[in-house]
Every structure is written in C-alpha cells, then in structure tokens.
C-alpha cells in the first residue's frame, strides 16, 4: 500500500470506530439514562410504570415504616406532593426524616415507587444537588434544611 492508501485506510477505520461508538452512545443515552423527577413534576409528566427514573426530594416526616424483614416504606416529598416508595435493602447511613434523598427505580402498577437504590450522601449538611435545586425552584427551599 502506498502512504496515501495507508493513511486513507487508517482514517476510514477510525471513522468506522467513531461511527459505531457514536451510534452506541446515542442509543444508550436514549435507553439507559435515567431522568430525575421530583414528586410535583410527576403530576405533569407521565411516567409509565416500569420506566427507570430517579425520584428525589425530602424524606417525609413520620412516614418511615419498617415492614417485614428488610423492606422499608417511606414517602418522598417536595412539600407540594409526595410519593410512596418501598425499598428492600440497607438504607444509607444518612437516611433520616426531613433529609434529602435520591431514589432510583420504577413505578409499580399500583403507583408505588419501587426503589432499588437509595442515595443519601455522606455529609450531614449535604443536600443532593438536584434536590436542592428543585426545592429552590419550587420556592420551598429553607436554608435551615440545608
């Protein structure tokens, strides 16, 4: 092969790789990225049962109920609406009433959000960024909750 042909083939191979990667990336972003909602957003956006989303807000006071074994039920609220969540597993160390939390999972057919992961980050002053921004946008942000 001449230098020109060699260069062309390398460039073509590179483009093929990039094309494949771009295709995969777009497909994956459409299918596999999960969107973030707060309880009040769910009234306007229709999220079909089974679609993976992230649900964030505050753990509503007095709603944490320990059921059978390791299953826990609680409500996530943004002070306007609240959503019932169930989770089986070990709650993070910072999971507390009135604290920011992000749960990831999907709605069951009964309208209860079944979470397979619950995140409450490590700093006791810490509020997940999405939750803090959402509460600010809804005008229910209080510095004291932070």
């Amino acid at each position, binding site marked *: 092969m001449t230098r020109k042909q060699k260069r062309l083939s390398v460039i073509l191979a590179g483009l093929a*790789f990039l094309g494949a990667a771009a295709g995969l990336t777009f*497909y994956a972003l459409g299918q596999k990225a*999960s969107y973030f909602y707060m309880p009040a957003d769910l009234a306007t956006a229709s999220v079909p049962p089974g679609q993976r989303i992230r649900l964030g807000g505050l753990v509503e006071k007095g709603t944490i109920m320990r059921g059978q074994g390791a299953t826990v039920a609680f409500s996530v609220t943004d002070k306007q609406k609240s959503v019932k969540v169930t989770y089986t597993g070990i*709650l993070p160390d*910072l999971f507390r009433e009135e604290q920011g939390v992000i749960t990831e999972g999907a709605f069951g057919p009964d309208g209860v959000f079944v979470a397979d992961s619950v995140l409450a980050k490590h700093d006791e002053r810490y509020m997940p960024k999405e939750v803090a921004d959402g509460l600010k946008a809804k005008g229910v942000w209080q510095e004291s909750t932070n």
Partner: protein
Amino acid sequence: MVETGHFALVLAFALSLVQMLVPLVGARTGNQRLMAVGGPVTVTGFALTALSFAALASAYAGSDFSVASVWENSHSLQPMIYKITGTWGNHEGSMLLWVLILTFFGALVAVFGNNLPSTLKANVLAVQGMIGAAFFLFILATSNPFIRLNPAPIEGRDLNPILQDLGLAIHPPMLYLGYVGFSICFSFSVAALIEGRIDASWARWVRPWTLVAWMFLTGGIAMGSYWAYYELGWGGFWFWDPVENASFMPWLAGTALLHSAIVMEKRSALKIWTLLLAILTFSLSLLGTFLVRSGVLTSVHAFATDPARGVFILCILTLFIGGSLALFALRASRLTAGGLFHPISREGALVLNNLFLTTATATVLVGTLYPLALEALTGGKISVGAPFFDLTFGPLMLPLLAIVPFGPLLAWKRGDIIAASQRLMAALAVAIAAMLVTGLFIDGASVFAALGVGLAVWLVAGALTDLAVKSGFGSVAPAAMLRRFAGLPRSVFGTALAHLGLGLTLLGIVGTLCFGTEKILSMHPGETVELSGHTLRFEGLFPQKGPNFTEDRGRFMLMGADGNADGAIASAKRFYPVRQTMTTESGIRTIGLSQLYLSLGDENKDGSVVVRLWWKPLVTLIWGGGLVMMAGAAMSLLDRRLRVGAPAKRRKPAVAAAALP
C-alpha cells in the same frame, strides 16, 4: 512553621515563573547559560514545595487549629495516622500534594536529564514551569491551606469519617503520581512542538515516563476501587461515578499512549499520533482534576463547592488544552511522518489497540460530561450509570480483549496472522475448555458468564503462550529454552505480565458479577444464615468506643462444616459525634480468592438487625490483576534499553545521525 510553609509556597510560585520563562528564552536564542538556569531552579522549586508540604503536615500532626484547613479537617482525638493523612484528605492539602508531585517529577527531569539535548531539556522544564505556575497561583489565590484563624478554635471539626481509613492514605498520592506523571509526557510533547523536531530519542525518553505514570495510575485506581468496596459498604467495586471516570479516562488514554510509544520507539512510526495522545492524556488528567476539584459534581469525592475554584481550574484547563492543541495544529505538519507498515503487523495491531482504546475513552468522556452539559444547557437532569456504560464501553472493550493475545506474537512491519493463530491454538483450546466447564458444570452460569470466563482465560493463556513461544517452547531443548527464557528482554515479561493481569482482573469481574450471591434479611442474635455454602451465626451487637467514635459492632461467627466456629467476622455501625455522622464498617472474610462480605443495617424495634451479605467469588482478582499489571510496568521499566543512563549516551550520536536526513 505555618508561615514558613506559606512563604515557601510563594517563593516556589515565583521560582516557577522563572522556570517557565528563562529556559524558554534560552532555548529560543541558543543561550546555554539561560538554558542552564532551568535545572537548579526546578530543583529548588521542588525543595520549597516539599518544605511547604512538610509545614502543612506538621500543622496537621500537631493539631494546630489556628490553621483554617486543619480546623475544618482534623480533630485532636483522631489517631496520629489519620491526622497525617488528613493533610491530603481535603481540597487545599490535596492540591498542595498535586503540585508537590508535579515539582518532584520536574526535579527528576532536571537531575537525570543530563543526556537530553539541552534545548529539549530547557523547553521541557519551561513547560513544567508553566503548569506549576498555574497551579501555584490557583492554590495561593483560591485554595490557600495556610490561612490562619483568629481567635484559634479549641477543637477541630474532624476529618470526614469515611476518609479516616488507610486506603485513603495511599490512594490519592498514588493516583496523583499517575495523573501528574503524565505531565512529563505532555511537557515533552509540547517541547517537541516548540522545537518542531521529534526523533527516536524523544520516544526513548517519553516511554519510561509513560510507564511510571501508568503504573501509579493503575495502582491508584485499583486502590480507590478497593477502598470504595470495603469502606462504603455497598459491596460494589466500580460505580461509573464521574470521579472514578475522571481517573479512568487518563488511564485508558495512557494505555493507548503506552502502546503507541512502543511503535514510535521501535519503528519511528506514529510520531504525530503519539505526540497527540500524550497531550490528550494529560488533558484528561487536567479534566479529572477539574471535575473532582471544582465541585461541579455531586459525588462522594467532590468535597469542594466553591465556584471561584471551578472557574479558575476551567481557565487553566482551557489554557493548557487549547494552547497545546493549537500549537499541535500549527506545528504538527513540520514533523516528518514515520515508516510504512503492513496492516497485519505488530504496528497494525497496536494501531487497532489505539483505535479501540481512544474510542472507548471517548464514550466514557461522553457519558461523564453529557449529564453536565445537558444540565448547563437545558436544566434537564439525567443520570448516566452502569447501564449506559455496559452498552457503550462493553462492546468496545470485548473485541479489544479478544485480540490482545495476537499483538505480541505478530512480527514488526509484516506479520503472519496464520502463524500467530497456530501458536495460539493451545491457548484457544484452554479458553474453550474453560468456557465449556463453566457453562456445563457450574450451576446458574449464563452464556455471558461462560464467555466472560473463556475470554479471561484466553487472555491469561495468551500471555503465557507469548512467553513460551519467545523462549522457544517445543523447538529447542528444555535447557536451551530455560536459558532463552531467562535471557528474554524484561519488556517481554512486562508485556506478558500486564496482559496476564488484565485477564485476572476480567476473571475477577466476571466471577463477582455472574456468580456472586447476596441476601438481605433481618437477624436476631443466635440466628444462622446460609449463603453459597457458608453458614454464619449472628452473635449480637456489642457497643464499643473508639478514639473519636462510638460503634455498635455486630459479631458474626463463620461456622465450619463440622458445626464448630471457624473465625469471626465483624461489621459495625459507627457514629462520629463531631460531625454527627454515621458510617458502616463492612465485615470481610477472604476465603481463597473469594470474599464473604457483610454489612450491617438498622436495628429493628424487636431487637433484630438488618444484615446484607454477599458471597463474592474471585473478587480479590479484580485488584490482584491490577497489582500484576503494575508489576508488568515495573518489569518493563527495568528493561536495559529503557534504563536512561550511560547506554543511551553511547547510542546518542547514532540517533542524531539517523535523525538528520
């Protein structure tokens, strides 16, 4: 002492300005005396930075709460080891560690770079000086660790409890040795662009640096992964968290650089590409620093939240990446292209490796930055996690792993794929056997699991085949083979070890993901639970007091087959009163290469405790493979040809002559 440290830091900044200007001017005007300034200035700058770091560390060790950074991140009751490691367990201190390592590498070039062409050395030191100056200024302007408090508080606010751990003592320094180590490759590239000249001696210089940086980065990532595994109590070893990706992208690009630098050194081809990769790798290191240190992410590692810092690092990022790429665009055409090679050859295989690795880097980059970009542009919030990377990164990595064993068996210039395949027949047979055994004889093995095990065994067997073929297995007498084996270049062992380590890591990942089991249940004291053939008895919760925490320690007894106790495992819920923080200490018992992992949840009203336990088969191989890869890099570094000393000096006239036409 604190003021001495502060003063030393300012002096080091001033020296970095001298370091970036004087040698550069000297190299442009051909003034030897100006160029010679670079060395001593660089070494002095390192000494001053080290003094500054020592001053901060002693303030931490002595719990001097009149220093703001110490007050925020330390406590007098902390054990001494965590007082010291707390020095870099926070934003300010870790940036100081960053520049300490940067100046350290600069000083190494200054001291051991006597056989470099003087203009190249001057330019390299100048570029190192530029990076140093930018980061010294960043520290002094936005992240000064030496700010005093008046009046001085009596007690500190404690180091973040999850950072009070030995893993964290080692992880950041190693990671930074890797991250920042690539700055040398970057400086060499920019220096080559400034000079408009690049030759084989350049590659001979860059390759060991790439190896050193890559070795430490591998160790840093493995260490960080193990730390997250046992400290966060989630039982996962990789979360595709942006902070992890931030260190993984330079690793991927660095791996590509490692391979393309071989082509450049051996065949003086791929020059321009290697140079670009070196720039990109360090750019990704800078990007990682930006992501972690600016607070744009909300993740376990991002302690910093001050926007001024973010903007500052973003400026540094733009300046260095933009500047170096612009220089590349202007000057790259002046560099002469390298030799020709057939697509099926060692070079061709390495080009393919580079295509896969750089594309994979790009997908990780998109997955990491896309959520940030989307939020900045539209306010929409998405999370991109494991499902995304499984679908993008996975398909790119699998074919790469499958072709790895071919590479080292192909000849330079023009390889014989059929001969290489024949040599790999035994390895293929072993891999297929492993695949069949897994698929047929292990309960619950999916097709993916069998393929994964087969691929991992293929990598390991391929690496061993490489060594066997090169020592003449089957074609010479055993005694001669042993002699040949012992006489193989160290870099051949390095390659084989690194590829073998990759196979081991893959085996660990497949074992853990496909054959791991887990259980979540609530247990009363005295109850037993069985998981994958291991029986555990819960003994109960025992309150204990540590130096700066209280804990409820859940004790479990592993029951042997004969019904007798066979060692205890303990997991604890710790409470750190200063920060009002709970942490979970996981309980881990290593059995062979596998681990039994348990973590404690909340106590129920009836006295039972939620317990989550995992059986993780072969999990230790994930990090063990990383260690083997590091050993491979170390082995390559010991190669005679790379020993940068007298031999290179003897060779230099020949290289210079070769570079002339």
